[in-house]
């Protein structure tokens, strides 16, 4: 009887046609997020169970596959990290990190200890803070991204990236993350602070000279993750495409990530970071081109820069 009465009542509850039209319109004009490659490649990802890229505490086989798929060739460069914090029943646990100093990526799993689903539409934000190094850092760029979600365990995998630390940043770091409140609200319900230790990847630091479009070049930092160029003063080289020249003749275009500054409040230098698609050992690099401005590199020294006749 209850069921029948309930159904009779609810059958009469219907959205207005006008509302449905407006909703369709709103969906049609809404930008669609590009599906992450994790979903395209997760099924093809091979399990590399022997690789110690994640903490022994965390990650199911499925999440591990998702992580490996997201990391691609960086899987073997990743270092396991350990640390967790609980906020209002939600646990955030760091599991793996890639640390080149000026470019830092930390992977963490998020699950609700109370058993409620972790909604993959939660808006996360997080910053990474060196606890010992990075003293001169004025600002950085950071990003939090969903890497994967495992329905069975209702656990999400997240990637936190920071670009532009003044190096060295040391081994002790802190991840400070929050779930951003819904639009129109101010109260933050979930926030975590996790201290952890991670090893820095080898970095090749090369003093630079000369300038590009009036911006003095100070230093290049090369790691397997990418290249960071430090420039003097307020101008940046953000707008320039960066190409790396390798010993084996390859010319690799990099993807601009983010940047930071050194010196606060007195700005003295800017850092601009680019990332490789796949790892490149620092010693493999023989030159850099910022746009068409080419700088040859040898050991820890930079040669005299010159203009290439065409874009590499």
């Amino acid at each position, binding site marked *: 009887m209850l069921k029948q009465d309930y159904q009779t009542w609810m059958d009469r509850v219907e959205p207005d046609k006008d509302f449905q039209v407006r909703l369709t319109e709103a969906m049609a004009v809404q930008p669609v997020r590009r599906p992450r490659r994790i979903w395209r490649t997760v099924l093809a990802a091979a399990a590399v169970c022997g690789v110690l890229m994640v903490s022994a505490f965390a990650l199911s086989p499925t999440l591990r596959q998702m992580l490996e798929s997201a990391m691609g060739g960086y899987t073997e460069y990743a270092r396991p990290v350990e640390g967790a914090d609980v906020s209002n029943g939600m646990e955030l646990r760091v599991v793996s990190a890639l640390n080149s100093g000026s470019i830092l990526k930390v992977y963490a799993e998020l699950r609700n200890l109370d058993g409620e689903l972790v*909604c993959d539409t939660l808006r996360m934000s997080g910053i990474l803070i060196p606890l010992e190094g990075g003293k001169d850092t004025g600002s950085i760029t950071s990003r939090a991204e969903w890497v994967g979600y495992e329905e069975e365990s209702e656990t999400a995998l997240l990637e936190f990236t920071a670009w532009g630390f003044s190096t060295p940043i040391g081994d002790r770091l802190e991840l400070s993350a929050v779930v951003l409140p819904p639009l129109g609200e101010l109260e933050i319900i979930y926030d975590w602070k996790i201290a952890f230790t991670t090893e820095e990847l080898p970095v090749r630091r090369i003093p630079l000279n000369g300038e590009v479009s009036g911006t003095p070049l100070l230093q290049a930092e090369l790691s397997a993750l990418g290249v960071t160029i430090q420039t003097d003063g307020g101008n940046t080289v953000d707008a320039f495409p960066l190409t790396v020249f390798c010993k084996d003749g390859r010319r690799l275009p990099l993807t601009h990530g983010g940047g930071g500054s050194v010196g606060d409040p007195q700005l003295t230098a800017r850092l601009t970071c680019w990332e490789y698609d796949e790892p490149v050992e620092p010693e493999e690099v023989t030159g850099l081109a910022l746009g068409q401005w080419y700088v040859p590199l040898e050991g820890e020294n930079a040669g005299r820069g010159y203009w290439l006749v065409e874009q590499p």
Partner: protein
Amino acid sequence: MEREEAARLVEQYSTAVYRLAYARTGNREDAEDITQETFLRLVRSVPAFRDGEHCKAWLLRVAANCAGDLHRSPWRRRAVPLEEAGQMAAPELPEEQGMESAVLALPEDYRVVVHLYYYEELSTAEIAKVLGKREGTIRTRLSRARAMLREDLEEGETPC
């Protein structure tokens, strides 16, 4: 998103999402807000679904979460709950209004469970999965909700 695809999704699922939202809030405007936010999250998230049922379960779960978010919004807390307004209604209600009044007198978390059980005809295990709760919790809520509904509806019956 392609307009045709959006129209298909709205046609196929918006009524179910709207009804769940209405069951939870008892308010048409709030139900529209929740339905819209749920579908926009679908567009933004681009989740991969096994089939239509999987898609529907995802939408219902997000709608239930959105309804919770709406409830936590500070300005909503200052609004007069519909059930309080409902208490001012005339005592002799038609049968359907009696049911509406009785359902909206339930705690909000109970209403969603009642709706998914009686209207979407999900099992308690399926409801637990959709809402991310333990099945025992769902059974308890359902049992209490039934008792409260019966009591409320029996009190409202007019003697012949």
